[in-house]
């Protein structure tokens, strides 16, 4: 147990990074995923094609590979440097990878949500002269979002767990920190694992409950 108490600040730091990765990637993925969903139902075949290709490519690529590619390839191709600090730089590269991957799932969730909106609503919107953009923004998406709150919650929980894969490019979040602690305290592996497992339960269980409650509260009554 001693190891766990001694290293408590380190563990806390690691989870704080996990939370930051989750929130930043979640936000970017939500925006990107919504745009992609819009593209996939748009009148332009070329936009639909790009959206579909994006979703199929990202959904079928292992996240580890996406993140490795972001760490090695993106830094190279884009010549981007987010910060003079290497660790901050790699944090942002991993956020790009996590959001690019998660956006594909957000897109699919929102598209499923769009399908729950009754046909009559969209038809009525067209009848009063709303364009595609207005139709989507004013009528369809607000209802679609409320229908997919629970799935979005699942995606957020999956994202929380997926941030551990940022370890692949050396981002010192919870999983990499746990491994480092394992190496330093070989006699306290069980306690350290229990500590990190508990940490993830604390992060994911309330998220699930919150989104379950939100989904009930905001459900569109039909």
């Amino acid at each position, binding site marked *: 147990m001693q190891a766990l108490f001694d290293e408590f600040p380190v563990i806390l730091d690691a989870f704080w990074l996990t939370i930051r990765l989750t929130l930043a990637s979640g936000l970017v993925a939500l925006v990107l995923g919504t745009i992609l969903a819009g593209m996939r139902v748009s009148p*332009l075949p070329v936009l639909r094609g790009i959206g579909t290709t994006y979703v199929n490519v990202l959904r079928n690529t292992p996240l580890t*590979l996406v993140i490795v590619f972001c760490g090695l390839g993106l830094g190279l191709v884009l010549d981007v440097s987010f910060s003079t600090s290497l660790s901050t730089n790699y944090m942002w590269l991993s956020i790009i990878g996590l959001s690019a991957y998660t956006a594909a799932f957000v897109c699919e969730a929102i598209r499923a949500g769009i399908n729950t909106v009754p046909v009559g609503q969209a038809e009525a919107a*067209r009848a009063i002269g709303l364009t595609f953009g207005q139709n989507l923004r004013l009528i369809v998406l607000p209802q679609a979002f409320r229908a997919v709150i629970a799935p979005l919650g699942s995606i957020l*929980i999956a994202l929380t767990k997926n941030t551990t894969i940022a370890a692949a490019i050396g981002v010192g979040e919870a999983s990499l920190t746990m491994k480092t602690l394992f190496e330093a305290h070989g006699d306290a592996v069980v306690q350290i694992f229990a500590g990190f497992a508990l940490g993830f339960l604390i992060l994911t269980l309330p998220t699930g409950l919150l989104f379950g409650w939100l989904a009930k509260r905001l459900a569109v009554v039909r």
Partner: protein
Amino acid sequence: MTAVTTEPARRPARGRAESSERVSVLYDIPGPKARIRNNVLTVLVIVAALFAVYVMVTKLDEKNQLSAEMWTPFLRGDVWLNLILPGLLNTLSAAAVAAVIAVPFGFVFGIGRLSERAWIRLAAGAVVEFFRAIPLLIMIFAVMFGGSAVFGLTVTPFAAVVVGLVLYNGSVLAEIVRAGILSIPRGQREAALAVGLRPGQVMRMILLPQAVTVMMPAIVAQLVVLLKDTALGFIVSFEDLLNAGARVLPSNFNNIIPAVIVIAIIYIIINVLVGTVATWLEMRSRRSRKTAAQPIARPDSPTAVEGGLGNPAP
């Protein structure tokens, strides 16, 4: 004015829109102006996309990532045979072994969660919920280090990856099994009990045969997830496909970026193939008349939304 001149061209165009494309309820079938606007937008999008590709290609070229010696290794048979295929084989065998163990694991714990006895229900529930809440990579690290620290075993990366995959995916499969069994209309179980079958018999003879049909697509879809997750083994030095791309190939040709791109394409092809099987199974079981229940969605699946309307999915 222009309407007159475009009149002859309009009919075939509209006919095409109505026949080959599924009509969306989100927008009107484009008239002459909208079609011109759409065409302009299409051109703009294509130009923008081409520009993005061009920028990326020049950047890669600047960094010498497009030079011939980076890519020619992929045209050689021996590179595939000796460096890439062993990795692919390891990936597939880890996925296969994990799947073979995870499916029974899922059935045992999924049925356990529906047990008549409270303690079995609770124990199975605790196991399933715990392993679903813990990130897979954390599990793999724990197996790797815990195996030697606690049990004095040398855990190979292969074993660590397989155990991690079984615990996580087995737990998700348990949820699929539970949902599958619960999706069978309640009357069937009641009727079976009423004619004198014992609970075990009801499960074995009435519920499971139908549930398997219902949950097959979800199980196969989960196996795609499992296959993708084998790539985590790369982080613990398992010699999988990703390892071939990110460690073995670059150590020979110093071409990590081309290698990762080629490996990504292989993953995508395999996953699309398995995914196609899942879709095909789902269509089959939707048509199936063996059970009244409809195919279930995977838990945690982003498209697990109830209801439906007629907005065609493009």
